[in-house]
C-alpha cells in the first residue's frame, strides 16, 4: 500500500488498534524508516499524547516513588541462588572485597555496592570474561575480569589501568549485537591503578563490553578508542 493510503490509519496504529492489512503495512514502512510514515506517525503520536494529557488526574501512593527508585538504586533484593558461589567467582570476589575494603571510606555505599556485586556474580545466568591475560594485552599489564548478569548488572574488576588526567574518567560501555554502545557508567581508578566498578540494573543484549577514556561527566557515545574491548 502507498503511504497516502496508510495515512488515515496512522492514529489507529499509534493507539495500537490498527488491523491488518494496514497494521502490517505501516509496521513494514516504519521498520524500513519510510520518511513519510515516520513523520506521519510522529504527528499521530502527538495526538495520542494529547489524549493522555486529558486523562483525569489520579494520585499514586507515596510509596510508588520509592518502588521506582529501588529498581535502579539496588540490585534485586536478594539472590535466589542463596549462598552458592563458584570458586572462581569467590576468588574474584575476594579481590573485590579487598579493593572495596581497602578504600575504607563511604562504608554504607560500599556495602550496598558489595551486595550489588554479589547479586551479579551469583546470578547463574551471568557470563564473565577475562581480559589482558593472554597473548597481547590491550595495554602493557592492563588486566581484569568483567561479569555480566542480564538481570542484575555488570561488575568490572581491573588492574594496571592507564593513568588518566584529572579532567578525564573511565566510561564502561555495553555493546549490543546491533546498534550503538550503551553507556554503562563512569569510574576512576584507585591510586594503585586498580578499579572495581559495579553497574546495577538489567543489561539488554550485550555482545561485548568496552572501556574508554572520556571527559569528566562522560559521553553519550565513545569519543576515544576503547582500551579494553571484550566479547562475551
Amino acid at each position, binding site marked *: 500500500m502507498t503511504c497516502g493510503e496508510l495515512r488515515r490509519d496512522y492514529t489507529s496504529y499509534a493507539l495500537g488498534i490498527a*488491523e491488518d492489512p494496514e497494521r502490517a503495512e505501516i*509496521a513494514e514502512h516504519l521498520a524500513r524508516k519510510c520518511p513519510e510514515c515516520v513523520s506521519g506517525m510522529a504527528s499521530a*503520536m502527538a495526538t495520542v499524547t494529547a489524549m493522555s*494529557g486529558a486523562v483525569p488526574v489520579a494520585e499514586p501512593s507515596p510509596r510508588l516513588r520509592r518502588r521506582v527508585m529501588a529498581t535502579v538504586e539496588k540490585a534485586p533484593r536478594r539472590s535466589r541462588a542463596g549462598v552458592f558461589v563458584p570458586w572462581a567467582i569467590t576468588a574474584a570476589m575476594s579481590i573485590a572485597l579487598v579493593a572495596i575494603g581497602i578504600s575504607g571510606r563511604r562504608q554504607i555505599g560500599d556495602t550496598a555496592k558489595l551486595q550489588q556485586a554479589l547479586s551479579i556474580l551469583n546470578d547463574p545466568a551471568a557470563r564473565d570474561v577475562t581480559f589482558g591475560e593472554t597473548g597481547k594485552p590491550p595495554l602493557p599489564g592492563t588486566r581484569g575480569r568483567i561479569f555480566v548478569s542480564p538481570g542484575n548488572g555488570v561488575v568490572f574488576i581491573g588492574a594496571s589501568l592507564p593513568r588518566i588526567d584529572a579532567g578525564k574518567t573511565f566510561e564502561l560501555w555495553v555493546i549490543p549485537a546491533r546498534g550503538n554502545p550503551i553507556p554503562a557508567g563512569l569510574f576512576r581508578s584507585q591510586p594503585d591503578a586498580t578499579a572495581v566498578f559495579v553497574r546495577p540494573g538489567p543489561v539488554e543484549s550485550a555482545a561485548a563490553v568496552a572501556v574508554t577514556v572520556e571527559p569528566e561527566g562522560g559521553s553519550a557515545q565513545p569519543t576515544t578508542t576503547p582500551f579494553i574491548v571484550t566479547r562475551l
Partner: protein
Amino acid sequence: MTIPGILLALQMSAEHDENIARRLQRRDPEAMGDLYDRFGRMAYSVIVAIVRDTAVAEDLVQETFLRVWNRAHAFEAGRGALGPWLLAIARNRAIDHLRSLSARMDRNSYELGSSGTYLREHPSLFVDMEREVLNTDHARLIRKAISKLSANQQKAIELAYYEGLSQSEMAERMGEPLGTVKTWVRTALKLLREELGQEVAA
C-alpha cells in the same frame, strides 16, 4: 477524559527534560527520581484509568520507568520529547495488561507483541515533538473536540484509547457492522487531529 488538572502543575521545561534524559543515559539513579517527580503522576493517571486497579497500576508504573531507564540510550536527549515518550510506554504497558487478561494476546488480527509495541514507542517518533502537546490548552482542545463527536464516535474513541480494542472488537462490542465502526473511528480520530493541528497534510 475530563479534567486537565493533571497538567496544571506541569510547566514543560525543555532544558530540565534534556538534563534528566542525559543523566538517565549516564545511569544516574537520581535522574530516575527527577523523572518520577516530573511524570510519575501523569503516568499513573494514564495507567490507572486503563487498568482500573491501583495495585496493578503501580506495578505497571514501575515497569514503565524501568523501560525508560533501559532504553534511555536510544533517546535523543536534545530533541526528543521525554514526557510523551514515557506516556506512550505507560499506555502500552496498560493496554498490554488488559489484553493479557482477556487473552486477546492470542488473536493476530491486529497489532500484537513486543515488535509492534517496539515500533510504536520507538524514540524516533518523539523527536522534535512540540512540547505544548502536553499542556492544558491541548487537553482542553481534546475535550472540546470529543464533546463535538457523535455519541457513537465518542464511544469508539473511549474503547480505542482506554481499552485498546481493535475495530473488529469494537464492532462486536457495539453490535454494529465493522465498516460502520471503521468509519466512526477514522472520522473521530481525524477530527481530533484537526483540532490539535496535527492533521497530516494531504
